[in-house]
């Protein structure tokens, strides 16, 4: 290997290293746990921000008059958790659908969500949507 090739190798390694570092730091700073309702019990009292998926328990949705505050309960069949969310509600938000909430537990065990995503895996599959309703 001559001198120029060595320089290129070093230059290349610097770029690869920089990208690798960005990915590493990015994951470290921004990744969050993605848990089921049952698994989320371990996060109670930790004050840590995480994501949790569950189904909305029918009849538990209470929306305030301003339509910007919602209380509801989500479940993974084994366990239930009350959720408080502030923000505009997604169009698809309703009873029985799967939601992903991000936020943390308050001391009383209520999940305070700052993000509410309705992830309906069959959004484009009409036949499945038919089965759901």
């Amino acid at each position, binding site marked *: 290997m001559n001198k120029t090739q060595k320089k290129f190798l070093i230059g290349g390694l610097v*770029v690869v290293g920089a*990208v690798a570092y960005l990915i590493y730091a*990015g994951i470290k700073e*921004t990744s969050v746990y993605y848990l089921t309702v049952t698994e989320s019990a371990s996060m109670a009292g930790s004050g840590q921000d995480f994501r949790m998926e569950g189904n909305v328990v029918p009849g538990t949705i209470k929306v305030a*008059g301003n339509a910007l505050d919602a209380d509801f309960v989500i479940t993974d069949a084994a366990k239930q958790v009350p959720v408080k969310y502030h923000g*505009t509600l997604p169009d698809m938000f*309703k009873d029985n659908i799967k939601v992903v909430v991000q936020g943390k537990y308050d001391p009383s065990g209520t999940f305070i969500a700052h993000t509410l*995503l309705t992830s309906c895996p069959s959004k484009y599959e009409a*036949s499945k949507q038919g089965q759901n309703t």
Partner: protein
Amino acid sequence: MTGLGEISLSLSLIVALYAAAVSFIGGARNNQVMVQSAQNAFYALFALYTVASAALMYAFVTRDFSIEYVYNYSNRDLGMFYTVSAFWAGQKGSLLLWGWMLALFGAIALFQNRNKNRRIMPYTTGIIAATLAFFSLLMVFPSPVFDRLPGLPPDGYGLNPMLQNPGMIFHPPTLYVGFVAFAIPFAFAMAALMARQEGEVWIHSTRRWTVFAWFFLTMGNLLGANWAYVELGWGGYWAWDPVENASFMPWLVGTAYLHSVMVQEKKGMLKIWNVALVSVTFCLTIFGTFITRSGLISSVHSFGETTVGYYFLAFLILTIAFSVYLILSRRELLRSVNSLDSMVSRESSFLFNNLILIGAAFAVMWGTTFPMISEAVRGVKITVGPPFFNKVMTPIGLALLILTGICPLIAWRKASLANLKRNFVVPFMTAVLAGAAVLALGIRDIFAWLFFSACAFVAGTIALELARGVKARMSGNAENPLAAAFNLVWKNKRRYGGYTIHIGVVCMFIGFTGNLFNQQVETTVRPGESFAIKNYRLTYVGTDYSKPKPTKEEFVATVLVEKDGKKLGYMQPEKNFYKNYDMPNSEVAIMSTMREDLYLIFAAMNPDESATFKAHVNPLVKWLWVGGMVMGIGTIITMWPDKREKRLIQALTE
């Protein structure tokens, strides 16, 4: 008609297998009769796909709801425009569209090369036919599009209201064209290796296909972003969702390939790198399909879990094994003619542009598959979202943007200090001035300052190059400035088309940078009440109800918009309800200028007559769409037929 479609698809599997096998054997034995027969079979294959597609289209247009797919994606109320687009609204139809396009492109490539590239064409035909055999297999076994329902339902289920947007008509097919067209350069590259053909002929022969594929991939991504912006109603255009990433990754690697082939054309270097890149691009188009169809990675708009994903996984593994084997076994053909001379050179800047683009693709892939990997390795699901991608891609984007300015102007082999001074002092000063202007405007965000300065730098390099070329033509050919500029571009379409694309890139980066200054407000107001966002004042007038179709109900809110006390007009965001879809669908209202967009969502109607709104002010978004158009124009310039290039290809391939 549908029986005909079904038969065509079954036949297409047999014909595709025949074309592939006979083509490979005929190529290896140099048997012209076999090669010719395989080519004829390929044209027949295209005809079969066309018949099948026409049959499905006919079923949609005649409202034949006995076909499950037609029932699922349309109803009698649906206008003709959307009935046609329902063809690709679901997985089964989009696979058929995909296959038909591949057959069409393959047939065109075959026809273009009927008297050229005779050594490699049998293998090219074989590779495309084998890929088509895979698509036929999908449509015969796991994903039959002509499946029937037991009875004849009176009406269809209807098309998802979210898909009833003009963007949805153009976005998926545009993206598919991009995906599919990358199969052509891939097939040529692999064919050249199989035929042990040395040199750059396959690159020259497929340059236009590559640019064509890249053009559609670019436009497909942008149309998707635009559809998300105007239809999904969350205030942004890109959410780093797995489906978006799936089409962004091949774009990144395809862009790297587009640049690195220039080095091979000019210097005979990076040969292994180029065949590897075109293979990776093709594999990523398959990988993207796999992750979005397998249900392995949950996305807000996936196609649902189907076994089709695993067929794609198997096909992906086969493709990777095939290309790795070919590259390794033919590596002596892929030796570089030249070697790298200096770190400060065009070659080197291309190389770094490539490394960074590949790094970006890797980062996107890592972030997309991370939940799956962490669950498999550590047993816990950990997700990364937009913050991860924004954090990683911002510095990468900045580095790429700066290279966009350096790359086209720096000298080949080794740039002298004089070359650097001549080309970069003026752009650098432009960047400094722009940076000062940004500070003077009171912007203190470090990334905004860096990105606006870098944009000015790139614009400076292109303006300088254009000014020089025009000046040279004006004195050399005694032309007026306008004629000189036109001729300059016309006589060097590839170069100036490329610069035009780069101007588009600069505009897009200006648009991205605008994201740093987004503002939003959520509020509930009663009729007559107002709320403020930035220097806008919005007053809720009231809501009107109408029922334009038996299956659609509309609630239209009217909001008066004033800016700095001056009346701008009314905005009318809607909330619509569709029969069979028990969720409302919000139609946003957007007031757009080059400076910023006011984006208004009608979030809820409340029992007490108040209404809930979410308003965004998104600065500079329009630059993104304008940049996309400029890129499109630039790409068309580089693809425009060119006599000199035609003569070169003729000479090389005869």
